[in-house]
């Protein structure tokens, strides 16, 4: 076998092995999307009921809660960025990080100091490499987040919001995550969680839900106490929803990336097979011409000696 042919054969073999791996990863991601989507759907009732309750209290009472009113001069804003722990997901992580960068710039332009909270080791690595300060980071659960994880992420955020600005607290709470729109489309979005904004277009569970005027509620024990208890739960549920959507998006992005990797491997195998065939044909042609050449040289030599 010709040397050229052997090289091609070896490359085909290695690409085939890679293709098998990417195909398997594609399948795994595909099955996980469904599971993740189901979790998003399962968390929906709680999130929407909670949002309705928050809206009811916020509109139905004159309570001046620090979490509802905008600071006159917001000085510090917390940004929670949700990335994944693992790569191989195409532009998923870089899009989310880019979204956070844009938000950070916008907040900085408004004169606010940005405090970063990060979920997922990809985001942590990005900030670590650039020596950016990160207030807190969380890793290890991005593929399959539970409500307990969301609570752990939300706890320092809630604490920061409840702290006075002068003592290092924050005035605003933003979240950057990848919204799962469909199997094919996921976009990085940023949303302001606190202070609450009503009737503003955006993503995630929206207060109001287009239900019109809400009835006058009787609060038990009091509007302030209800609000105090509600808002942390609201933040947790928003974080949970964002984590779930981000996980679904990550799996969808992985699936897409692995699908194109598999397609590329197929393409590569096809062209390598063509090249290998051509090399084999060239080998054969050369051998034939060598034989023919050798035979005719022999014939010529014999003819010479006969004379």
């Amino acid at each position: 076998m010709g040397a050229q042919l052997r090289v091609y054969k070896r490359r085909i073999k290695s690409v085939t092995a890679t293709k098998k791996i990417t195909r398997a990863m594609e399948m795994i991601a595909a099955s996980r999307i469904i599971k993740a989507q189901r979790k998003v759907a399962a968390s929906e009732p709680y999130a929407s009921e909670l949002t309705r309750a928050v809206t009811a209290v916020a509109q139905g009472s004159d309570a001046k809660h620090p979490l509802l009113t905008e600071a006159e001069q917001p000085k510090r804003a917390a940004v929670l960025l949700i990335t994944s722990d693992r790569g191989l997901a195409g532009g998923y992580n870089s899009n989310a990080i880019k979204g956070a960068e844009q938000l950070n710039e916008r907040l900085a332009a408004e004169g606010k100091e940005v405090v970063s909270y990060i979920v997922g080791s990809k985001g942590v690595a990005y900030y670590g490499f650039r020596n950016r300060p990160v207030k807190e980071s969380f890793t290890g659960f991005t593929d399959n987040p539970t409500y307990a994880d969301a609570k752990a992420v939300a706890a320092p955020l809630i604490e920061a919001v409840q702290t006075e600005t002068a003592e290092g607290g924050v005035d605003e709470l933003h979240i950057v995550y990848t919204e799962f729109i469909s199997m094919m489309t996921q976009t990085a979005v940023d949303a302001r969680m606190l202070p609450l904004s009503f009737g503003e277009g955006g993503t995630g569970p929206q207060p109001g839900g287009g239900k019109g005027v809400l009835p006058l509620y009787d609060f038990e024990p009091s509007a302030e106490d209800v609000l105090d208890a509600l808002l942390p739960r609201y933040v947790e549920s928003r974080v949970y929803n964002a984590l779930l959507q981000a996980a679904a998006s990550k799996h969808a992005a992985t699936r897409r990336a692995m699908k194109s990797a598999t397609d590329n491997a197929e393409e590569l195998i096809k062209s390598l097979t063509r090249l290998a065939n051509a090399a084999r044909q060239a080998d054969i042609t050369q051998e034939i011409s060598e034989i023919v050449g050798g035979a005719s040289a022999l014939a010529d030599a014999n003819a010479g000696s006969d004379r």
Partner: protein
Amino acid sequence: MAELHVELVAADRKVWSGEASLVVARTSSGDIGVMPGHQPLLGVLESGPVTIRTTGESGGGTVVAAVHGGFISFADNQLSLLAEVAELTDEIDVERAERALEDAKSKADEDAEKRADVRLRAVTAAR
């Protein structure tokens, strides 16, 4: 008879939904019973059993759930019970809860003790 529609949802799933004639839950200022036509209400729930007296095709019955903190909201005959963790008594493993209670007591883990206690109380209330 008037009915109210009840949705009992935990953070990660819908636990129970259906029609009921009375719902009794514990708020921070005491037990509260909600019947159809109650004034719109929004309250903070304490950990404890929630009793739902059901109506509907299956006839009258009682559903009891262990709720670990949360909210009750009622308006337009729609009652929602929101809890971070909620379990129906059918889902509670009594032996496990009893073991957990013993465990928590010996370790002086107040949260775990409370959780196990709420589960057991809910089971007792359902009987």
